[in-house]
């Protein structure tokens, strides 16, 4: 049964992004990036509290993205993307440092963190109008190169699970998916069909180094999959939707467990056969708003908890 959670803010809310701690099962810690700021829950999404209390701000700080360090339980590092800058907290949100991006400051649309963050201290920020910024010092300073990225409006960003070896990341834009093989220095357009854009969401296989698999969710053409690192893309006709795919999640055990979750307008679809067939995540749920963001803190196995952020500003746990 879905539980709508209490709201901390009166602002017309939208949930843009969700992130959960790697030890969510134990700690229940998760974050939601919203129109009114960044919120933290320590009880699995039951109640939420703003974490911007230490900031002196007159107006709500619209927060469009959030990522946690892979070692969050130990280092407490949280990064939040806003309009013009990226905030960093090294104590789970108690206090914040702000990195202002180069002027004119762009809107940060997505954040992605290197799987080897502990050693390479690298993370990426996708922006509107300024492409992809990269930080190699835990978010203190940010630079952009963007050679070959002729569409600088980034809608989504994913990093290879083998980033330390292959330096691969992918950026979805209005008409294309670009691939960088050198840590965002330069980009080449993949074979994604331009007429099928915009690309709103992407997911990368945990076994990307071996299977080269990626998924891309579009605004009105459904879901696409590439099995050759983006060279060619196939439309997954099994997911028969014409609405936008706002998020895609992939099982951490993919491809052994070929489970996928797609967040379409008003519905959550799951596939347990690598995208061949799809069904509702749960038939007994009626969402009161469009699902915008989703997190699966413990994976996609049947019965696992999901956090879903809605266009109404609610976060529900199902």
């Amino acid at each position, binding site marked *: 049964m879905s539980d709508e959670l209490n709201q901390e803010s009166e602002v017309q809310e939208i949930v843009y992004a969700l992130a959960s701690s790697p030890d969510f099962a134990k700690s229940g810690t998760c974050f939601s990036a919203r129109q009114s700021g960044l919120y933290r829950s320590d009880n699995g999404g039951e109640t939420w509290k703003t974490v911007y209390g230490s900031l002196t701000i007159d107006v709500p700080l619209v927060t469009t993205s959030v990522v946690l360090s892979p070692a969050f339980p130990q280092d407490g590092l949280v990064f939040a993307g806003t309009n013009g800058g990226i905030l960093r907290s090294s104590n789970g949100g108690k206090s914040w440092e702000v990195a202002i991006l180069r002027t004119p400051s762009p809107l940060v649309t997505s954040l992605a963190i290197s799987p080897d963050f502990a050693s390479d201290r690298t993370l990426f920020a996708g922006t509107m109008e300024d492409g992809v910024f990269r930080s190699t010092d835990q978010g203190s300073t940010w630079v952009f*190169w963007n050679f*070959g990225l002729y569409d600088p409006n980034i809608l989504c960003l994913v990093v290879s699970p083998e980033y330390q070896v292959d330096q691969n990341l992918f950026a979805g834009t209005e008409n294309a998916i670009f691939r960088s093989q050198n840590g965002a220095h330069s980009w080449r357009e993949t074979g994604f069909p331009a007429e099928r854009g915009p690309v709103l969401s992407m997911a990368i296989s945990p076994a990307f180094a071996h299977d080269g698999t990626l998924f891309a969710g579009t605004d009105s053409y459904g879901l696409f999959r590439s099995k050759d690192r983006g060279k060619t893309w196939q439309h997954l006709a099994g997911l028969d939707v014409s609405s936008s795919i706002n998020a895609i999640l992939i099982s951490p055990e993919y491809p052994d467990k070929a489970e996928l979750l797609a967040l379409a307008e008003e519905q959550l679809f799951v596939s347990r056969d690598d995208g061949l067939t799809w069904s509702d995540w749960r038939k007994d749920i009626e969402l009161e708003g469009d699902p915008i963001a989703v997190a699966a803190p413990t994976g996609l196995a049947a019965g696992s908890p999901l956090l879903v952020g809605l266009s109404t500003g609610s976060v529900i746990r199902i």
Partner: protein
Amino acid sequence: MKKSKNKRVIFQPIAYKAMQTGINEMANVVRPTLGPLPRMVAFERNTKNERPEILDDGGTIVRRIIALRNKDQDMGAMFLRHVLWQQHEKSGDGTATTAVLFQSIFNQGVRYITTGGNPMMMRKHIEKGMEMVMDELKNMATTLEGQLKITEVAESICYDREMAGILGEVFDFLGEFGHLEIRSGRSRQIEREYVTGTFYKMPLFTAEMIKDRDKMMAYAEDVPIFVSDLDFDEPAQFAPLLRVAGEAGIKALAIIANHVSDSGVAFLLNISRNPEKFQAFAVDAPIPEDGQPVLLEDVAIQLGAKPFFKAFGSTAEGVTLEDLGHARRAWADKEYFGFVNGRGSPQDVRKRIDELKKRYDAAKDVEARNKVRVRIGKLLGGSATLWAGGNSELDIEMRKARLERTVEAMRGALLKGIVPGGGVALLACRHTMQRMAAQAMDEDEGFAYRTLARALEEPARVIIQNAGGDPNVIIDRIDKAGPGMGFDVRTEKIVNMAEVGIVDAVAVTMDAVHQAFASAALALTVDTLIHHKKPETVFNT
């Protein structure tokens, strides 16, 4: 037909013999330069007290040979010289490979023809064999990706570790079409600089427009840009633009124009007195000789601007805010106008890039192809400049030349892929030629394919020979080792060439095969030499 008293005609067998001597003389000069352990070629300077010029590049070496003393032999030498220079121009590399392939085919062919073989049939079968070898090379090619691989290929072309390391990084960032400039440096090393965004050779009309004195440039953020090839003779012509700027609350405006008069420049400086409130700067976009402002069209696409061209009768009258392009950042100095993240439609940029890529593939002329490549690079964004350093001016010159030809070959490798180096890819193509020879319908065909099979061995043989090895013994070991295996002359071991990074750009190898096979086949059909007794006066002064 009118006979010229100045003509001298040479018939067989002298013609072949003379051609062959000239060809061998030219090829033998280049042969020692093939491979990673090349021998140098020293050229005497015009002035006796200068040290000889030391060269290791086949293209430059053949350029230095103006003529042979014996005119009959000179025709053969100049024939090959032209072939090698074409290879050098087209690929920037592979001249020595072309030379040894050509030499082998020609020498074998002459022997056959002088004992009664049919040169026209030889030519036909050689050309057929050439197509088969080219196809085989194409199928053998693998994509070149990643900095490490790119560095390895660069090193296999330039044999200079420092240069290869830098080129590996540069091409990894820029890609095959990236905008790269090579200049003479002042330090001992090769230095590089990267520039984000795009820039064009469009200087400010006056350096007084430079407001940022530290960086010596005019600079503005979130800036609307008027793209035109118009002439602004009077300050009043700026009025429509300033009206739009005023109405939209614009704080900075960049103007691209063909001409701004002194009074126009003074007017722009005057209204930009307080750059915090408003600044305008104008850059000079000269109309190209052919009158086609294609670069301005590219700029307009990137910025999302409506271009105003004289040729279409445009004026600045009636300009609207929507007509102006837009960039997140724009700058200009005494030489260039640049911008980062234009607000042009990505679809339009992509369409333009696709269109230019087709034009690039179709271009036959090197200069035209390079112009198109530069335009693609600018549309993609990002560029690099390399400064070739060295221990002396001569060293700098040599490194710059080597950088230029390596860069050319690298672009080919990135575009078309790579094959095992050290002559191994060509060795692999022998088997097809041997099979074709075994299936031949007549003696001419059989001999042509046997000739090609033997010629395909020659580059590997010469590389081994130049490194001091015994080609017969080592080629036998390579054959026994299996596909992809070759001789690393530096470690003197049989290795998997691709795995240890000894690779060649397939485009260079294919060009070398094409140039050598087609030209040698043609040279074999030359029956008579005719030349002037006295050189004709071409220009009267």
